């Protein structure tokens, strides 16, 4: 037994060396990514923040009306957003929304093509699956440390951690959707003369769309579940007051911030979910 503990395999040291190497070798690259993303998010937050909150609510309502045509949903969203303003979390909500939307957009941009590629190449999915499992099961705090070192404090490490956690959803569901496109539809596409790319855009993607949309919705919800963690590494948003409340054992602040997060979650869920379920039906 002693022999086992004495001869420690330096797993941790290896990882540390790897990260150190990354920092020295590619610090320019990581700085560039960090600055670009940070500027992007800050600009978006500032832009929305510069508009009067009630005008922002109006814009959101118009958009939701076009998507869903549901009065009930409009009333719910209006009341929720007004309550958030009343609690004083308007700016934080915008920061959170921008972070969630950016993380989702990046995850989808990267995840959907990977999902398609995996659906077309079974070996690729065999390789990807353990990586995806790892990304979703490894405790978030573990990779928060290297992202923090690589990207510094602020939105970006939060964003990257969120993406690592959430990207599995669009990859998995795109893979599922594309690989279970009914064979007869593929045959029909080919029989009528589709090229490879036509087959993808005219048959496979439309057929997989309900699944891909479910992946996007899931990705949004997973991203939202990371706001508190993102706040730990300095990303502004609704996570910050939660952590502050935790540190000062402040029940009222914790409760209010929690309510705001829940309201944002319900709103996003309602806004995203029904169009995709309509497609599926």
């Amino acid at each position, binding site marked *: 037994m002693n022999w086992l503990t004495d001869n420690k395999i330096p797993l941790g040291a290896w990882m540390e060396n790897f990260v150190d190497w990354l920092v020295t070798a590619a610090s320019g690259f990581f700085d560039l990514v960090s600055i670009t993303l940070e500027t992007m998010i800050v600009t978006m937050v500032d832009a929305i923040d510069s508009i009067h909150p009630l005008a922002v609510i109006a814009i959101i309502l118009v958009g939701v009306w076009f998507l869903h045509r549901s009065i009930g949903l409009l009333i719910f969203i209006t009341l929720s957003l007004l309550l958030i303003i009343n609690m004083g979390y308007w700016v934080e909500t915008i920061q959170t929304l921008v972070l969630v939307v950016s993380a989702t957009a990046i995850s989808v941009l990267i995840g959907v093509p990977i999902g398609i590629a995996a659906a077309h190449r079974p070996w690729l999915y065999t390789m990807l699956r353990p990586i995806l499992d790892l990304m979703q099961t490894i405790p978030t705090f573990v990779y928060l440390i290297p992202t923090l070192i690589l990207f510094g404090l602020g939105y970006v490490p939060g964003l990257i951690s969120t993406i690592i956690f959430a990207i599995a959803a669009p990859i998995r569901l795109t893979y599922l959707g594309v690989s279970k496109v*009914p064979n*007869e*539809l593929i*045959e*029909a596409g*080919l*029989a*009528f*003369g*589709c*090229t490879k790319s*036509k087959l993808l855009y*005219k*048959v496979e993607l*439309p*057929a997989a*769309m309900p699944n891909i949309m479910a992946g996007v919705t899931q990705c949004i919800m997973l991203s939202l579940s990371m706001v508190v963690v993102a706040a730990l590494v300095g990303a502004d948003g609704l996570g910050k007051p939660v952590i502050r409340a935790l540190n000062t054992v402040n029940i009222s602040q914790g409760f209010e911030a929690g309510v705001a997060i829940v309201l944002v979650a319900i709103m996003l869920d309602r806004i995203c979910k029904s169009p995709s379920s309509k*497609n599926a039906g």
Partner: protein
Amino acid sequence: MSVVTIENVDIVFGDNKAKTLPLMDKGHTRDQILGMTGDVVGVQNANIEVNEGEICVLMGLSGSGKSTLLRAVNGLNKIARGRCLVRDGDKMVDMAKCDDATLRHMRTRRVSMVFQSFALMPWLTVLENVAFGLEMQGMPKAERLKKAREQLKMVSLDKWANKKPDELSGGMRQRVGLARAFAMDTDVLLMDEPFSALDPLIRSQLQDELIELQKRLNKTIIFVSHDLDEALKIGTKIAIMESARIIQEDAPEQIVLNPATEYVEKFVAHTNPLNVLRGSSLMTPLTELAVQDEHVVINEDIKMKLENGKLVSVQGPRGDIPTARWTPETILANVPDNTVFIVPANIAMRDAVELRYHSNHFMVLEEADQCVGILNDHNFYHALLGKHFGREEAAA
């Protein structure tokens, strides 16, 4: 003129073709080969020639390789060996060896397909579905939607143009599938059990519609079916497949009259003779009828008088019975009862029974202006009892 020629085609599913093909040549069965190499023999040594305007039906039970062979004609299934030639203007293109661009050209311009499960795109409207193939042809949007609308009118679904496929019944969906294939204006149409998923009434209705359309459009159709009655109804030629091989290829009537193997015989046993048999195989030939005083005796009351092999008169117990010439265009209501019909020897059994029912008399069969035989109740009963079908009977 041959439009599709299938020559010595083998189709194998699996990765050990190099091992499987020699085993097939050595005469190993499908099951043995599956055990030895893990490959599945889909089609073995198939030869068919389909001419312009023909409907060739590939018949067999599931797993016999009929759909597999059909899918070789538009290159959905890869051919391991042999040639599958499809006419493209003046030349024949080998679908087994052509490059991707040619394959696409053949699929968009020469060969289109109808699927058993319809294979309509659920996210497109009915109209867009019909226009799908035209889009692949590169036709501009306005033009292809206009053409698709015309095709929908042809299958009388123009009112449903903006619905989604899942709002339609099965029969309507397959009509959309037909319209989609016809819209392509291809000479060759592949139909993979297109009516099998439909209930019997709709099925027979669509079969009739297909026969009508075919009269107008004169396509070359390869049709897969597991239903012999369907095959006999629409086919001009039938190829019967059993475990990856074509075991008999013949005209519909020949298939039921002379089944090549026991397997075909079993298939044939329960067919409805009304749909298949023709006068010449039903009739009592002239040579078998008794002659008395230069009259051919039909029964004790009725005799026929022939001159140079041509019918002159029919004599009944109370003088001559009037005769009338029948063609498929004849309107029966205009012909008085108690008339002996003179009919072409290739008359369909259904028509002959109808005539017998109307006229109450036997009928006289003619071929090239010569009387060749007669059709009487006895001939019909013989056929209805299925006594024409079966190899022993044919041999005897």
